[in-house]
């Protein structure tokens, strides 16, 4: 090879070498670029992953250079966000404030913090908290600002919803007819609804411990303080009835109840209470109590009156009978048959009057002087009654057929009166030449009371059937009315009060009485009574 050939070869080798170097250079820079790209990608991913946006700006606050985080979030491209272009991504209403903060920060050369709404690449505005710090050069000048946006949208929403919740609560509390209040766990009152301020006439928003103490009636205050203290210590519900003074100066009765609110650890975080106006009810209760007491008093007075009246009415009758008796005994010889007849009639009338007054007294005392209800075995009562009626039974040749009777909560003496009257009647009103036969039976039924409620223990229905003269059922009401008779005065002895007494007794026990009958075919008197009584039956 000659000299030229070797130079060309070297040139070629040189070119090849350059080409190789160039290739290598390109390849190496590609690696670097790739490496850089990879770093960039990682950086971007990191940046995007931290829900925060980071950026830098020049000392004046203009964005310069690539701002990938900002770009990625806002969707603005390079041209768009350069210099003050980034403001376009800020919500229009927040821009002025934003700039103001910036200017101050730049002047002050110190960090700043503010909030604004930033538009996301999809157009949605979200809340951000922004913090920007200056980066200083060695000689103290600001080289650039570094900033970080933190998404606080969720927090803002939560705050808003809390505020909404709070507002809704207040609206509800103000709409309620009751006074509503709230207190801290230590018992300090920190909220009253509008009703409270309307009621007390105090300016809205005032409150605190001392307020409510002034409003409570002095006689009720001690008890309410004690109970409130006990409630906040124990965590049990608070409840009290007391009088509150309204702005007009008068007191009204209120029922206050409060319950604690607990967090997940069951610690009390708040007390909520209501005060409900129960003044009407309290006053009604008072009136009822005083009415009842007046009625009881009236009952007592009536009873005393009836007793006194009966005594005073009986006195002249006794005299009539006594002195007519004297006349008959001492003057018998001087009296002719007619005189003796007159005297007999006088005595008779006086005697009937005595019985009448006595029966009237009995009638009037049934409710006011009745005894307490105790269990009474009616079979035993019948035995006593039949013993009293022995004479009449014998005289009429009558007989009584008795089926088993229940034990009933009742006044024993009145049961005696009731059965004596009914059985006595059954024997009295017998058919001529027909010995009376009386059948007494009972059954237990479940009949509701006047309000349709079932009687505890059930009801018994007792029937007293006779084979006597009977009566037309169209007179049924008269039969139980006082002084009403279906026969002439002389036909059958009696005052016409017996069945009225029966009805009153039965009604006092919460029962009913009626009769079935046909003239000439006997009668059946039926009464019902609850087996148990709710109260003792004492009417003073």
């Amino acid at each position, binding site marked *: 090879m000659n000299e030229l050939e070797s130079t060309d070869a070297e040139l070629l080798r040189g070119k090849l070498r350059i080409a190789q170097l160039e290739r290598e250079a390109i390849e190496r820079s590609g690696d670097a670029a790739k490496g850089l790209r990879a770093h960039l990608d990682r950086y971007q991913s990191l940046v995007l992953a931290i829900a925060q946006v980071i950026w830098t700006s020049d000392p004046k606050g203009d964005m310069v250079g690539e701002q990938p985080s900002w770009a990625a979030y806002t969707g603005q491209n390079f041209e768009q966000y350069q210099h003050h272009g980034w403001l376009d991504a800020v919500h229009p209403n927040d821009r002025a404030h934003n700039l103001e903060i910036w200017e101050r920060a730049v002047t002050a050369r110190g960090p700043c913090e503010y909030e604004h709404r930033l538009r996301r690449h999809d157009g949605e505005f979200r809340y951000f908290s922004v913090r920007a710090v200056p980066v200083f050069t060695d000689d103290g000048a600001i080289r650039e600002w570094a900033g970080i946006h933190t998404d606080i949208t969720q927090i803002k929403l939560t705050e808003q919803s809390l505020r909404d919740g709070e507002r809704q609560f207040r609206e509800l509390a103000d709409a309620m007819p009751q006074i509503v209040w709230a207190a801290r766990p230590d018992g300090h009152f920190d909220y009253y609804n509008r009703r409270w301020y309307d009621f007390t006439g105090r300016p809205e928003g005032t409150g605190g411990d001392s307020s409510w103490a002034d409003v409570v009636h002095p006689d009720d205050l001690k008890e309410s303080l004690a109970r409130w203290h006990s409630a906040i210590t124990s965590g049990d519900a608070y409840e009290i009835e007391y009088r509150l003074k309204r702005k007009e100066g008068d007191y009204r009765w209120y029922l206050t109840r409060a319950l604690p609110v607990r967090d997940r650890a069951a610690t009390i975080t708040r007390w909520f209470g209501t005060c409900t106006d129960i003044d009407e009810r309290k006053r009604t209760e008072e009136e009822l109590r005083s009415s009842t007491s007046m009625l009881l008093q009236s009952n007592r007075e009536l009873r005393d009156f009836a007793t006194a009246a009966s*005594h005073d009415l*009986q006195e002249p009758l006794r005299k009539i*009978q006594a002195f007519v008796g*004297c006349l008959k005994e001492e003057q018998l010889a001087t009296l002719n048959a007619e005189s003796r007849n007159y005297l007999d009639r006088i005595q008779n009338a006086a005697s009937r009057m005595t019985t009448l007054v006595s029966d009237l007294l009995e009638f009037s005392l049934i409710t006011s002087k009745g005894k307490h209800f105790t269990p009474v075995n009616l079979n035993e009562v019948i035995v006593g009654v039949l013993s009293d009626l022995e004479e009449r039974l014998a005289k009429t040749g009558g007989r009584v057929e008795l089926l088993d009777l229940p034990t009933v909560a009742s006044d024993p003496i009145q049961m005696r009166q009731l059965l004596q009257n009914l059985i006595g009647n059954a024997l009295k009103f017998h058919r001529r030449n027909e010995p009376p036969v009386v059948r007494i039976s009972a059954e237990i039924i479940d009949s509701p009371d006047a309000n349709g409620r079932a009687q505890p223990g059930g009801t018994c229905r007792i029937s007293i059937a006779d084979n006597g003269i009977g009566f037309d059922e169209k007179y049924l009401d008269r039969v139980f009315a006082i002084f009403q008779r279906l026969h002439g005065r002389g036909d059958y002895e009696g005052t016409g009060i017996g069945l009225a007494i029966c009805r009153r007794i039965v009604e006092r026990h919460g029962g009913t009485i009626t009769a079935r009958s046909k003239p000439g075919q006997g009668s059946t008197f039926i009464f019902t009574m609850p087996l148990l009584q709710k109260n003792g039956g004492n009417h003073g």
Partner: protein
Amino acid sequence: MGDNEKSIIILLADDDPDDREMTRRALDKHRLANDFYTVPDGEELLDFLHHRGKYAPPAASPTPGIVLLDLNMPKKDGYEALAEIKADPALRRIPIVVLTTSNAEQDISRAYDLGSNSFISKPISLSKLADVMMVLGQYWFQTVKLPSIPSGN
């Protein structure tokens, strides 16, 4: 009655003049009315027993061996008088028989609670009243031993 026994003085407290008359007659029928005194109300009854007021002269108010007591009297009724007598050590020995028109259970209980020795419901007719007086006389003056009562104060 034995020779040694003085006749028993009967004192009746009753506001009704007719009743007083009837009782006298009833006692009379059985010759028990020899020493029969009456007072019209509880106050005079106590005055009589304490020999006070118009009964100060001892002759006017000999200590009775038995008192027949009506319950319904003005000024001071039978219950009050009964309570007072039975509370007084000087008078409580005197047997008191309540003789009244009432037959109400609570009147009977109340009389016995206050210490009456017995209780009789006045019958209406004179003859029955006379029978009662006879039985009364037999029981209290013959069957029963009466205590001695210091007479005078």
